[in-house]
């Protein structure tokens, strides 16, 4: 494993401290206003009419009755909608959208829950009531309702992110031990608490939109393309987001429809996506089928690994779930192939959901590794320790910092893995059979280019701004911590402004890269502002006139010279009658010298009570190596939350579609089962906290996603240990574990 350079100890205690979220009080007291809380004067409300078929076209659409309903102002549909333009959807240009088709482009229906009309009325209730009166007839085609149907109908199309080294097929054929297994994961839906919502208005050709967005800059640029106006004439606001899990990374049809309606009507329009449509028209994690072929030599060393995955995508766009992204580099293996393909089905376009690729991919890989360990008669822990990669063999680069062995060992020890008796079903407690399982977790570390501004102000406060977002994860707080650390100002005198596309360009809040991307830019801007402050202080009438700038040091929100004379920023600025000392900065993405990844391991205890077919996750111990932890509280919260989400992925979550017509059937919050408090296991998270200073000066790699990767596999492996049943299709519901289930009578 690579060694870490010693870190320059220039960070104070506030970096890493578990300070409470600075936006907490506003959220708790209702002062935090979200996209649907905006109430501009003259506001009117939109409500969608959504397709009830999954494939075909609108053959007739009549608004006559709806128009008679009280309060109706306008009804848009494919025959009545302004001409807009598609965004090129380029990540590099910063205008990516996931569903490139615009709302109401034509009469085609690609999925159930697609917008077919938008009613605008004076109140939300009137808009909803009138939406029901829009009469739509369809010419329905046979829908492709799931992955198997898609593959059977038209096969697959190559995806991206493939990798090959050595000759995996030949090595497999001549290997001592092999397994060839297929795993499946269902559609999962993000279901953030806050529903997608947009409030939009136009003033003199300028679009202002409050959107539940994880990427205000990306949304601004996409909307500028869609409305064919310069990006300066679009402002996207997302000061608060009730989480997103990836579903709010890109601009979806409802935001486009809202902005277009506002322009047509010349007044503000608000649209909230109903919960049922949060399952259809704002993305989801696609269904996957993954074939894993693993082989070992006589010593239990992996010699061949193939991970071939197929995921469902829409008929409008190709979304690739890169299930093999982690497989390329987690284990050392000379002969390895990873491939991704997609198949089109009649569902909306999928999108990134927390740890895209890795979450379903590691369910398959880490289940298969467990199966391989069993096949060679090895302890799954020892098997992993024997096979973990020491360098990234896919990139042929050293890891910038990798402590997976320590993470695995520490978690194993805390968990009590050595008390595991290997025999299936051999550990019992009362009526319950205890199962122990483990899995590695892994996530790519990314750092993007970023701009930021920091102002030290005459009133003794600092203002930091960046057009990134805080999606509930703590970005506001860690930015304030960084500014406090560099300026010596207390947190309560630091204002952080995020979520506004007119601020300096910042990253989308996704990929776990917001921290590693934003903090260096903030730090650089703060240093520029401090240099400016020193110039003011050492100028003709300054408090330190005549002193050389480099003799001054920053102390407690002011500057101090070698004699101990200390003057606050406020006084320095006051003396010069300046309002602020400002710093703007740009930082680049990470260089390609190393492979940057985060690592960890989950250990899971499940309990299976065969007498009532009850399965529960009783305990999870996870050790995570994500570089430096910036805020102990919010970091831990991310991992714990991801573990809970992983329990949901393992045991409950699946968006179900009727195989006959492609309609979702459990698209509400009662029937789409996620864990509740009563399902929470005992969770123990160890944060290793080794700064990765090769990655950025803070040594932080980001922590939002890694916690969910591997968790479902650890659960499945524990279930196998308890029951002897290898469940290769998520979720692991009780019916899959029961014996003696009779045959069904009918189809």
């Amino acid at each position, binding site marked *: 494993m690579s060694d870490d350079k010693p870190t320059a100890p220039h960070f104070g205690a506030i970096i890493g401290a578990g300070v409470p979220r600075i936006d907490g009080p506003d959220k708790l007291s209702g002062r935090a206003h979200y996209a649907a809380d905006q109430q501009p004067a003259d506001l009117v409300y939109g409500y969608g009419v959504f397709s*009830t078929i999954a494939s075909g076209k609108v053959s007739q659409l009549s608004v006559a009755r709806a128009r008679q309903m009280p309060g109706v102002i306008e009804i848009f549909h494919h025959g009545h909608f302004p001409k807009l333009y598609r965004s090129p959807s380029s990540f590099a240009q910063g205008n990516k959208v996931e569903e490139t088709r615009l709302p109401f482009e034509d009469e085609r229906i690609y999925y159930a829950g697609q917008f077919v009309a938008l009613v605008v009325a004076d109140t939300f*209730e009137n808009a*909803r*009531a009138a939406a*029901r009166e829009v009469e739509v007839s369809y010419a329905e085609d046979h829908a492709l309702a799931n992955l198997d149907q898609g593959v059977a109908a038209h096969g697959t199309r190559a995806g991206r992110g493939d990798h090959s080294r050595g000759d995996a097929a030949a090595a497999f054929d001549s290997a001592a031990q092999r397994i060839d297994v297929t795993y499946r994961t269902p559609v999962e839906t993000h279901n953030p608490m806050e529903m997608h919502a947009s409030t939009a208005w136009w003033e003199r050709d300028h679009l202002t939109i409050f959107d539940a967005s994880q990427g205000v800059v990306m949304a601004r640029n996409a909307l500028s393309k869609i409305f064919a106006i310069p990006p300066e004439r679009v402002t996207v606001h997302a000061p608060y987001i009730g989480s997103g899990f990836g579903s709010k990374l890109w601009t979806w049809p409802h935001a486009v429809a809202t902005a277009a309606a506002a322009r047509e009507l010349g007044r503000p329009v608000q649209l909230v996506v109903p919960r049922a449509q949060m399952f259809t028209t704002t993305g989801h994690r696609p269904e996957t089928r993954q074939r894993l072929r693993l082989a070992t030599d006589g010593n239990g060393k992996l010699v061949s690994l193939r991970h071939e995955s197929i995921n469902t995508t829409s008929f409008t766009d190709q979304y690739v779930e890169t299930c093999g992204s982690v497989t390329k580099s987690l284990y050392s293996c000379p002969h390895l192939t990873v491939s991704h393909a997609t198949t089109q089905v009649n569902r909306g376009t999928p999108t990134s959901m927390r740890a895209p690729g890795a979450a379903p991919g590691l369910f398959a890989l880490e289940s298969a590794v467990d199966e391989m360990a069993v096949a060679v008669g090895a302890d799954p822990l020892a098997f992993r320790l024997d096979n973990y990669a020491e360098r990234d063999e896919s990139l042929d680069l050293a890891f910038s910092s990798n402590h997976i062995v320590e993470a695995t060992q520490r978690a194993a020890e805390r968990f009590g893995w050595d008390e595991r008796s290997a025999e299936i079903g051999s550990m019992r407690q009362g009526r319950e059979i205890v199962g122990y399982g483990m899995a590695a977790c892994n996530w790519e570390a990314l750092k993007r280019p970023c701009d930021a501004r920091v102002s030290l102000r005459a009133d003794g406060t600092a203002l930091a701004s960046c057009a990134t977002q805080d999606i509930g994860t703590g970005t506001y707080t860690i930015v304030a911590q960084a500014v406090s650390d560099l300026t010596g100002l207390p947190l309560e005198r630091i204002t952080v402004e995020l979520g506004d596309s007119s601020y300096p360009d910042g990253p989308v809040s996704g990929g776990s890269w917001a921290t590693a991307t934003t903090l260096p830019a903030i730090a650089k801007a703060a240093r520029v502002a401090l240099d400016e402050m020193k110039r003011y202080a050492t100028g003709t009438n300054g408090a330190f006139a005549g002193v050389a700038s480099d003799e001054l040091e920053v102390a407690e929100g002011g500057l101090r010279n070698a004699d101990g004379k200390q003057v606050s920023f406020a006084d320095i600025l006051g003396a010069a009658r300046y309002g602020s000392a400002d710093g703007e900065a740009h930082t680049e993405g990470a260089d390609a010298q190393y492979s940057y990844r985060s690592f960890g391991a989950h250990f899971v205890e499940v309990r299976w009570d065969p*007498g*009532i*077919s*009850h399965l*529960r996750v009783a305990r999870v111990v996870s050790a995570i190596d994500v570089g430096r932890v910036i805020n102990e509280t919010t970091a831990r919260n991310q991992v714990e939350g991801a573990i809970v989400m992983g329990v949901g992925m393992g*045991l*409950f979550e699946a968006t*179900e*579609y*009727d195989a*006959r017509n492609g*309609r979702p*059937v*459990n698209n*509400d919050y*009662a*029937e789409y*089962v*996620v*864990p*509740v*408090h*009563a*399902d929470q296991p005992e969770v123990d998270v160890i944060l290793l906290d080794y700064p990765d200073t090769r990655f950025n000066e803070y040594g932080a790699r980001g922590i939002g996603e890694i916690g969910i990767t591997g968790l479902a596999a650890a659960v499945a492996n524990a279930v196998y240990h308890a029951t002897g049943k290898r469940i290769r299709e998520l979720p692991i*519901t*009780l*019916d899959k574990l*029961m*014996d*003696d*289930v*009779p*045959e*069904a*009578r*009918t*189809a």
Partner: protein
Amino acid sequence: MRAFDYARAENPAAAIAAHGSDGQAAFLAGGTTLLDLVKLDVMQPRKVVDINGVALDRIESLDDGRLRIGAMVTNTALARDKRVVEDYAVLSQALLAGASTQLRNKATTGGNLMQRVRCPYFRDGVSACNKREPGSGCAAIGGVNRSVHAVLGTSDSCIAAHPSDMCVAMAAIGAKVQVEGPEGRREIDFADFHLLPGDTPQREHALAPGELITHVVLDAPLAGSRSAYLKLRDRQSYQFALASSAVIVQMDGNTVREARVALGGVGTKPWRAPEVEAALKGEPASEQRFADAAKLAFEHAVAYSHNAYKIPLGQQAIVRNLTDLTIA
């Protein structure tokens, strides 16, 4: 949501008068079923009669040992009532196993009796559904039917499970539903209150048009009995039963003198299982006997594409509940 007239009634007679019997009106109790389905456009009353002011919110002990519960007593109040906790533990537990705290605070005894099925094809407003639109077919047969569909009492017209937990406990306890309507008052035996779907799944209960439930009167508790409700589901709270059992047993040493068993989640109505009760009577308490008896409840069960597991799961609900009450 469509516009409707709204009236507030001060007493049962006024409520009944305001409601009328043309089938166009609905009583509004807690609203947790009604308003939900109105917003989904599945229920479309022209008139809503709010009965929150009718003063049917008392729980009274009757001289004959029975307990009379006003239709407007909330699920929370009923579950926490001392007499219920002590004499009808199964009912208190069933109520607390249902829904969420917020819902139970609003939901009422009468409304719970009248709650509609959770079948997604019923709720989506567009699929073929004989209950919502008689004669249109049943999309659940051959569709997704894992969680909220039944294996007992189904028909080729409808397979939706009755969703209530409370009613399962009442089915085991035995009760009378007191109603008042345009034709006066009457009493319906609890067992006859909910109807099997047959080929008229749109008819769910024995109320005549315009009749108001005023009370539910529980049979006197079985002397010296113990009772419990066991609800099995995927997650541990806030989910309807995949299978549940309400069990009341009266023991004579180690022998079952009398048992009452009802099932939830598996039947198209709250499902009393007399064949299980008969098989248990006079038998020694043992897991094997319980398992043999539990089988009898499912002799005529019909499994659909995704819910065959409910047949063994329902038996487990009975066996574990009985075991915990008598052996464990």
